[in-house]
């Protein structure tokens, strides 16, 4: 049995769902013969034909609008943005059209928007976005953010099957970093965090890119005698507050980590919620580690300075443990 990368897992989920359900199709820029900028759709055109792998002109608002139109007619479009950054060009279709359809008219909009997100790849200010907070603040959208190849596959299966519009944040940084055995991966229900590492001294709540960084920090701290629990939320709307509160019951200390910029990021929501729900159980303030409030600089060392990493997580945890 072979292991697969994160991007291969995405492709595998697409293929399986397209084989299983004739309503599923892909739409985006350069996704046909070329297989997409990151090769997520490689070979799909040959396999499924032009009707189900639809190459579009460069127009993100169009792609999203077309996906909405197809979804309300009963198809299950999976739209690819070439980079998450470009979803900003079609923002209104998600923020007002896809997200309100069911609310207004009871019409289901089963679409998925795949967003190659995140930094640590030298992408600079226009190819590094972590846009989750734009969508977590938009009722009517669901938002998922897998951190491992297995979750990438399992969450994409569920996203495609979900009757609501799902924003699927995939991490360019993770595309080819690690491999998982994908055998037996099923659709992963939304709203269930996974405990990536157990511990009793402090809890890290995170998702996507920063999960592996948090695990690395936990590893280092383990050598110093601290057991850190790392919770990978996996889905942000809905998010699994229960698992987090349970963990805080045990640890009394929480660090929230994400790669998106700090101010008004989704970490604020998590931290505010936990600080409220677990007020009596906290031995220290809920802290956050996130990117500095800047665009993402292109030069690698500047980028590292601005983005979170294992060292910064470790430092923040150390502070927290000594509080």
């Amino acid at each position, binding site marked *: 049995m072979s292991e697969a990368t994160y991007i291969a897992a995405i492709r595998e989920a697409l293929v399986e769902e397209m084989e299983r359900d004739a309503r599923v*199709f892909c739409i985006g820029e350069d996704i046909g013969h070329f297989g997409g900028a990151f090769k997520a759709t490689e070979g799909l055109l040959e396999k499924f034909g032009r*009707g*189900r792998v*639809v190459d*579009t*002109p460069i*127009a993100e*608002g*169009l792609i*999203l*609008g*077309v*996906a*909405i*139109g*197809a*979804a*309300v*007619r*009963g*198809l299950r*479009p999976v739209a690819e943005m070439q980079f998450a950054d470009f979803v900003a060009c079609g923002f*209104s*279709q998600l923020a*007002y*059209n896809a997200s*309100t*359809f*069911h*609310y*207004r*008219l*009871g*019409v*289901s909009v089963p679409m998925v928007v795949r967003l190659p997100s995140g930094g640590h790849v030298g992408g600079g200010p226009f190819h590094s976005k972590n846009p989750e907070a734009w969508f977590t603040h938009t*009722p*009517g959208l*669901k938002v998922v953010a897998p951190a491992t190849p297995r979750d990438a596959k399992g969450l994409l299966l569920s996203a495609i099957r*979900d*009757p*609501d519009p799902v924003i699927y944040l995939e991490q360019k940084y993770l595309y080819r970093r690690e491999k998982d055995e994908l055998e037996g991966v099923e659709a992963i229900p*939304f*709203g269930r965090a996974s405990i990536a590492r157990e511990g009793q001294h402090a809890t890290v709540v995170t998702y996507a890119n920063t999960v592996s960084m948090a695990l690395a920090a936990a590893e280092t701290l383990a050598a110093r005698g601290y057991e850190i629990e790392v919770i990978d939320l996996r889905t942000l709307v*809905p*998010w699994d*507050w*229960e698992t987090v*509160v*349970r963990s805080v019951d045990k640890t009394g200390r929480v660090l929230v980590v994400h790669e998106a910029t700090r101010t008004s990021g989704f970490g604020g929501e998590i931290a505010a*919620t936990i600080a*409220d*729900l677990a007020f009596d159980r906290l031995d220290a303030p809920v802290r956050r580690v996130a990117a500095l409030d800047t665009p993402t600089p292109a030069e690698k060392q500047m980028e590292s300075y601005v983005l979170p990493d294992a060292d910064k997580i470790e430092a923040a945890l150390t502070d927290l443990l000594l509080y």
Partner: protein
Amino acid sequence: MITSRRIERRVIDLYRQGIITGGCYTGIGNEATSVATAFPLAEHDVLVPTHRDMGSHVVRGHTPVQIMQQYLKRATGQTRGKDSSLHMGREGSNIVGMISHLAHMAPVAVGVALAERQLGRNSCVLTTVGDGATSLGDFHEALNFAAVQKLPVLFVIVNNQYAYSTPVSLQYACDKLSDRAAGYGMPGETVDGTDAVEVYDAARRAYTRGRRGEGPTLIESVTMRARGHSEHDDFKYVPSDLLEAWWRWDPIERFERYLEEHHVMTAEERRSVGEDVDHEIERAIDIARADPMPTPESGADGVYRYWEPRWTVPSGEDWELEP
């Protein structure tokens, strides 16, 4: 046409009485276009209308009762008070409900056509925008992609001389808006939007082309917005002689003359139809007014098609961890 006009006259009355609230946009002056473009659609064809398309709603089977329930924001209305006016189109119908963001339904209409083709149905799609909405990029993106994909979409531009207070001279600088068609590689035509027969013929040609696989068509239908943008608007910015001149081209009177000249319907018959229509509308108003208002709590319903209660994050005092 007559149903459309008379419903809207009553809508205006009800608005003035404060029984209908919110924006109050009517298609008075636009009936020939709205009705005659929708008329040749087959049952399975799909309508993606805009805010002055009472005419096509009526043609496509929305009844006065349904319309009044919607306008009066009753619990029985299609959007159950969540949305207002012509934002109608429930699941399963062949009408896709609009959002307010102008031109945003144009890509959706293209998506509908794409889906219909994929589903093996040879359906045409009719969608409209105003002269003002042509300035939005979304409209451009939709036209372009429909042409590339040779999709059977009829794009109708209702050029009623104004977009809110903005005259067409500040909106665009070309001669005819149908001049844009060549730039997309589709046929374009400008028709007299007060002449239902001319509009009908043009629309029928477009659908015939569409069904033959010859792709989309752009029709500019020239008419006049006979009232203010919304009923609160006194439209002082419209020169009064322009308005007066226009009333001589009232599409309904023109069509009535046509019916008479061609001995399709006598004045007597028209009067009797008119009475039936009025009667039906008054009945509809009575029914709608007797219908219950939605409960306040229902304002929070239906944001998602599928949502588990445990996904909702508690706020405030009362919450318990599930066992």
